[in-house]
């Protein structure tokens, strides 16, 4: 078959969109748009990498910082949120063995998030609105530097993302608790106890006191517990970001209507605490909890075995949830107005517990995999190991910077951006998501054969080496004093930046190869067909054998 023919029709017939159920389609839509947004974010990343090597003439300061502002919005909300929400939209009903509560709501969810991310991006691209994702007060309302219209478009975009997020949250919680038609009513109490992981704790307690387990067969499977717990943080985070968005919006509307307001009415440090409390629920809350749940699920699916230390895993997820509510002060260790006791307790000590909770997830996943050896080194397994490696590198890097001594010389340096969050997101989180994509691929595409294993291998190695390498060279530059969010005009860190740029290029090339592999597998026709209305009227997750013919 010619290259062109395969590109249009896919590998061995490609994706037959007419066989896809509405749930498969809504999942694939979110994942596809998320992967495309990842490419945009990677391209923006490369623009900044190139600028760090040698300032690009077409990127003036306001343009550069607007790219820096929208890069995480597109990367986190446009890409990660969509891929994660898409996958969970399928996995929660799949694991609960019942249909998704509302397919219509799931369609609105990805639509709102996709449009919201696009609007936020336009706010930066057209108007160069550039307060960065941190939105430190009063920078987002400094209209001597920014056009208020750009701010309006940006904030409305982020608000739309949050509204879509609330839709996802409602759908997930409703799917866990609702009783499907024709079934006996499911009692809420055991579901809630199990979804919160309290049954795991009670099982440990009962065992310690010599009693029978509280629950031999938990009402909710462990990965759903993780998704449920992570979604609580997603909810709180959405509320905080929406609240800040409304505050900024009030000032923007005031400025546009000629009634400029005094920004000193808002205490900048109090705002910073509130905002970081919410924003940190993404980084140190839902990401870590979702990731732990994804690892557990992937380990169980890859090995076909039960998870090692199930009850501990359930209890650890509850601990992670509580820890995630109390760690935000590690972002304020360089703020001298922040009370020392908060820095010590929240910033250092509670934050250090993330080493424990994430360490537990790593140990349980690795032991579960080991118990099933020998295993075939499939794409899902290798990406899972890559994801675990990413967090093994990034979490300690975060604990190191969450130290009052080290933070004094690491805060806002490339250490934060490189070894910590880019390694966490690109290697840890993204490789875990790729593992989930590879393992769900046959189920979601009704068995489309991957076009090229060699391309999948390149995707793996280029992504892994690129991600770790970029983080490492940014980290080395940080040790020599290189800040993030700062322009260096005298070539101060050029060698490190060239090496980080090469690694960044590897990352971008990995995405291009992955995209081509996906496109050649499903075909352009199949890919576009995902966005058309499903021809199967069913709430089932996958087609029946008859429908699949």
């Amino acid at each position, binding site marked *: 078959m010619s290259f062109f023919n395969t590109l249009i029709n896919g590998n061995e017939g490609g994706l037959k969109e007419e066989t896809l159920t509405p749930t498969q389609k809504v999942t694939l839509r979110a994942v596809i748009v998320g992967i495309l947004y990842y490419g945009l974010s990677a391209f923006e990343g490369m623009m900044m990498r190139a600028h760090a090597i040698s300032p690009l003439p077409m990127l003036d300061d306001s343009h550069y910082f607007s790219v820096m502002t929208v890069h995480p919005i597109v990367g986190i909300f446009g890409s990660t949120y969509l891929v994660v929400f898409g996958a969970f939209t399928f996995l929660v009903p799949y694991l609960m063995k019942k249909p998704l509560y509302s397919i219509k709501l799931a369609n609105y969810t990805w639509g709102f998030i996709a449009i919201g991310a696009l609007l936020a991006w336009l706010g930066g691209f057209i108007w160069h609105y550039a307060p960065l994702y941190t939105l*430190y007060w009063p920078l987002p309302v400094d209209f001597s530097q920014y056009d208020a219209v750009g701010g309006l478009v940006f904030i409305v975009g982020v608000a739309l993302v949050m509204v879509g997020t609330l839709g996802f949250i409602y759908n997930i919680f409703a799917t866990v608790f609702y009783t499907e038609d024709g079934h006996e009513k499911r009692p809420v109490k055991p579901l809630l106890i199990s979804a919160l992981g309290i049954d795991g704790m009670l099982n440990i307690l009962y065992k310690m006191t010599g009693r029978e387990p509280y629950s031999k067969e938990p009402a909710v499977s462990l990965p759903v517990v993780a998704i449920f717990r992570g979604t609580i943080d997603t909810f709180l985070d959405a509320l905080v970001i929406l609240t800040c968005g409304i505050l900024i919006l009030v000032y923007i509307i005031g400025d546009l209507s000629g009634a400029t307001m005094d920004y000193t009415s808002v205490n900048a440090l109090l705002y910073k605490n509130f905002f970081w409390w919410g924003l940190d629920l993404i980084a140190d809350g839902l990401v870590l909890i979702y990731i732990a749940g994804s690892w557990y699920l992937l380990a169980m699916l890859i090995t076909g075995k039960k998870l090692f230390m199930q009850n501990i895993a359930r209890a650890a997820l509850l601990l992670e949830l509580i820890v995630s509510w109390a760690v935000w002060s590690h972002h304020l260790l360089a703020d001298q107005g922040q009370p*020392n006791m908060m820095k010590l307790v929240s910033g250092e000590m509670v934050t*250090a517990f993330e080493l424990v909770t994430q360490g*537990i997830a790593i140990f349980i996943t690795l032991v579960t995999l080991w118990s099933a050896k020998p295993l075939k080194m499939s794409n899902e397994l290798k990406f899972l190991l890559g994801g675990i490696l990413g967090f093994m590198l990034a979490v300690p890097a975060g604990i190191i910077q969450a130290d009052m*001594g*080290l933070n004094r010389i690491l805060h806002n340096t490339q250490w934060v951006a490189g070894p910590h969050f880019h390694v966490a997101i690109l290697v840890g989180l993204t490789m875990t998501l790729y593992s989930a994509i590879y393992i769900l691929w046959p189920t979601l595409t009704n068995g489309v054969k991957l076009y090229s294993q060699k391309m999948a291998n390149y995707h793996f190695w280029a992504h892994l080496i690129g991600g770790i390498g970029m983080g490492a060279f940014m980290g080395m530059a940080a*040790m020599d004093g290189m800040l993030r969010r*700062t322009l260096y005009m005298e070539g101060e860190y050029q060698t490190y930046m060239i090496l980080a740029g090469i690694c960044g290029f590897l990352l971008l090339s990995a995405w291009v190869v992955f995209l081509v592999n996906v496109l050649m597998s499903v075909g352009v026709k199949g890919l576009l067909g995902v966005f058309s209305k499903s021809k199967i009227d069913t709430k089932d997750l996958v087609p029946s054998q008859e429908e699949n013919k």
Partner: protein
Amino acid sequence: MTDSVDVLNALKIVYTIYTLSVISLIGWFALGLVNPKGKPRIVKPSTFYAYVGILITVGVAIHIVTFNKIPWVEIDFKRDSIQPAEVYKIEMKDHRYIFNGQDIKAGDIHIPCNEYVLFEVDSKDLTYGFGIFRQNNSMVLQMQVVPGNKNDLMWKFHKNGVYHLRSTEYSGPAGAHMYIKDVFEVSGCNEDDKYSQKGADK
């Protein structure tokens, strides 16, 4: 006396060793996972609890070690009860550093050696950063400068040198180049800061 160069050098070594160890561990694990020889060993719960114990110990030990080995942590905790030899009051507004009523410039601040000095920086509009850097661009110290709040940092310098001032926080595109060379001069020490002698870039 330990300074930031010593701390960062130690961190470079420790984190590089850690990174290489972890990559090797996962590589070894992956090879073992696909190796058909040998049966998987059953991991006992006691191994798991010992591992958790190690994690807790490491998490807490990092902070105890740095508290005892990095001198500025204790100074930071006690700064309210220490009388500084000098207080430098700096104001920030419109992306400018203002000292004694004028834009700050090279040679403006002379710092005595081995004395507690206090930097009090007040922002009149945005959130900025206050960072002191060596001639080779490595960082000596920094703090955030949050408007409407107290931003004070106490320090003790032990080496002679000339240092730059740079904002360590983004304050919009207009603040992208808040960098003033050779603002601080430390003198009177027995030792020179070899990375921060004027005219030397390394």
